[in-house]
């Protein structure tokens, strides 16, 4: 027990790091679900491709694993590139695979999303190969701040960076949703897409924004995870997508602050679970959470239970 308590602050930091990433992924699911009531199966792949975009920037801007310019600049460029690539990809997917099915039964939309997911995953497999790509990040961070020690707790600079960036992005998004005109239009569209159209909101455009923002945040998460765990491969999207979805469901799907909260709770739970279970079982723990939440409280922690209208 004592050993466990000693580990606690460390695990909290770990949980917060990965929780921030889950939250970023979850936002993409929840925003799309909030408006279209569809599960964007391809979101995990968009996250993965964001990771690859970050890797390419780093790769092109380093020689012999050494960065050729200011590290802060490279990291910013990586995140921006990831967000741009993923955002555009998300919009493309919406335009090509989902919009033609707007009026179709939901099962068709879901199957189409499944198709997009498989397609993107194997596209990357064919062009990047099955071997993971490594982020050579050691040279990016100056030696004296690579590891930071506070009392007994040791954590890496990258963790701080990931926490800071993910929380910053979430803050920006919250501001946008609450205060800007586009944010207001998004909330209106999520409540009632038809009524929003009647009020003069171009809902097709709002849907494009939603895919753009959600996918961009997913892409940022992909690069952050790359920086943190120093690798990315074509298969990471599947697991991460499921985790992100779990977080979204946990918080109440359709609810953006819920997704953020859900991500952080899921991250913390996983981190704490690793102190009790062997780490191979970490994923089993989070899928079990998903199953339990869906079965007993499918509307999540912050979602509303909506009775079926007859």
């Amino acid at each position, binding site marked *: 027990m004592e050993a466990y308590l000693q580990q606690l602050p460390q695990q909290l930091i770990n949980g917060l790091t990965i929780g921030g990433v889950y939250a970023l992924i979850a936002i993409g699911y929840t925003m799309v679900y909030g408006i279209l*009531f*569809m*599960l964007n199966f391809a979101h995990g792949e968009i996250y993965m491709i964001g990771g690859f975009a970050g890797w390419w920037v780093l790769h092109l801007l380093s020689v012999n694993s050494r960065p050729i310019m200011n590290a802060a600049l490279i990291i910013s460029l990586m995140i921006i590139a990831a967000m741009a690539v993923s955002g555009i990809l998300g919009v493309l997917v919406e335009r*090509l*695979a989902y919009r*033609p*099915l707007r009026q*179709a*039964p*939901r*099962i*068709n*939309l*879901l*199957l*189409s999303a*499944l*198709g*997009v*997911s*498989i*397609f*993107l*995953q*194997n*596209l990357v*497999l*064919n062009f990047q190969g099955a071997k993971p790509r490594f982020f050579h990040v050691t040279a990016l961070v100056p030696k004296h701040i690579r590891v930071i020690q506070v009392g007994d707790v040791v954590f890496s600079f990258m963790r701080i960076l990931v926490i800071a960036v993910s929380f910053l992005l979430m803050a920006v998004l919250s501001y946008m949703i609450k205060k800007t005109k586009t944010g207001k239009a998004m909330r209106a569209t999520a409540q009632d897409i038809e009524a929003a159209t009647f009020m003069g909101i171009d809902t097709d455009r709002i849907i494009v924004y939603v895919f753009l923002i959600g996918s961009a945040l997913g892409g940022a998460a992909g690069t952050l995870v790359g920086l943190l765990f120093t690798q990315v491969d074509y298969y990471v999207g*599947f697991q991460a997508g*499921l985790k992100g*979805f*779990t977080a979204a*469901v946990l918080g109440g799907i359709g609810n953006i602050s819920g997704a953020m909260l859900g991500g952080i709770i899921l991250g913390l739970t996983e981190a704490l679970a690793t102190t009790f279970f062997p780490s*191979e*079982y970490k*994923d*089993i723990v989070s*899928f*079990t959470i*998903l*199953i339990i939440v*869906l*079965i007993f409280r*499918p509307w999540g922690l912050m979602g509303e239970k909506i*009775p*079926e209208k*007859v």
Partner: protein
Amino acid sequence: MTLQATRRNRFLGSAAVLLALFLLPYVMPNDYWLRIYGITGIYVMLSLGLNVVAGFAGLLDLAYVAFFGIGGYTFALLSSNQFNIHLPFLIVLPIAALLTMAFGFALGTTSIRLSGDYLAIVTLAFAQVFKLLLINLDRPVNITGGVNGIYNFDAINIFGMKIVSPESYAYLIWFSALIVIIGCFRLKDSRYGRGWNAIREDELAAKVLGVNATWMKLKAFAGGAFIAGGAGALFASFQDSVFPNNFDFPQLVIVYCMVILGGLGNILGVVLGAILLSILPEFLREYGAYRMMFYGLILIILMALRPQGLLGAIGFLSRTKKRPDKDETGVLRASTDLYYEAAPESECKGSENGKYCKGNRVALEIKGVSMSFGGITAVNDLDFCLFEREILSIIGPNGAGKSTVFNLISGIYRPERGSVLYNGSEIAGLKPHQVLKAGIARTFQNLRLFNKMTVLDNAKVAQFHRTKTGPLSILLHLPRYKKEEEECERYAREILGLFGKRLTGYRLEQEATSLSYANRRRLEMARALSTKARVLMLDEPSAGMNPQETSEVTDFIKELRDKYGYTILLIEHKLNLVRRISDRVLVLDYGRKIAEGSYDEVAGNTQVIEAYLGRKGR
């Protein structure tokens, strides 16, 4: 003549298929192709099993591949050196299938109440847990062999016949596949098939018509798992090894592609889809790396352009379509014959004493029922009685709570307070199909027919709760099944006959969606009548009808009471209709009863006038 011809065609078709299955292993150029042939048979079974879950019942089950895996690993553990258990194949196969079915059942019970996407995700999570367990259960005790899997199984020995060569496997696999194909056809054409079809089309309507949706979905899950488990055992033996990767997500996607390419629910289509997608990659082997990409594209393109699959709507395989405006000899019908012909020809049984006499026994009693939705009280402390063989009309302005009353009685909502007694026993809180079984049927204001089902099948589904044949009788076509099917068909035709020729003749085989609006209203009533319930709740039966049709429907409802002894609760806005047939009228406003009595009493009531027209002098 035509019947004989179809019989002959069917016989010739079956003979050709059997001959082909017998000869094909001989014409395969080499062992490699023989193995492809065998694998194709396994995929046929696997796709058909998935078709039961996703095609028949419309459930997006992403754990399906785990069932395949459970079957495979069960075989692996029971006939190998892993635990030194060596059971004969004829015992292992049923164990694998039944055990997998049990897992399917268990998974179903936990996740079945979720719909659509949620179900997909929960089952996907289950599949992931399954795969992670396969990979990790090699320590501390080696059960699954981890990523290295299990291999070297006992040879299959069926009554002394050793199945070792690819030829013998080909025969064994395709023999099983044939059984699965026949079983699927029989299932589709039974009460099970109709029940699933109804759930897929409109779950609420199916429930209200007496289909126990939860139970039927569970059965679909279990049935699909059964087939997958059996296929898994065969696959394990055929491959002589099992690895976690055999039962992973890409495999699931392949099977989904097969089912969707063929057309969800279309058995022949699915078989062809499975064959096509098993063989095609062999010709495209040099592009093997792009195989999964190609599957992804298939899904996207099919969903966008042809969601019904390749064979989805091709005429020669689906029911032969008749021109609605022509009779059998090809002569055009005069439409007037159809529309203005007189009353029913057939006598319906079930009238209790021939002539109408209003009973004095209470059939349905509502006591102090209340229901609110987020602060708005839709029904407030409502009391009323419905006597046997009486027509009680509920009227009131829009939003008065009339439809909510129907929903409360039929079990769609559970009343917050109060009780609903039918023949003296409580039915509040029962599920919709239980309410129907108790003897109360209803129609919907905004038609909820099973649009893609034929008129006849719509009427047959309504008998689901009264028919009892189980899966064994259906699969083996036992006499019990045949008798019940005939009776079901006869009764459906009899009820449809009550509406003259409007729902019979060539229309029996038409899809409900192709009927005219008035005929769809009639079918909605016919469907409720087919349930043999004694109490009918009709929600605006004449909505959208012209005066001629309204008058006809009014007579029909009256006849239901006078001639056949039905007890009827009616919601209606057309006061003419209400005046002509109601024994009593109940007026609701803001969820409260404001008047009750004969039409004239109610029509003179000041409160009623105020509710409808507003107060004077405001």
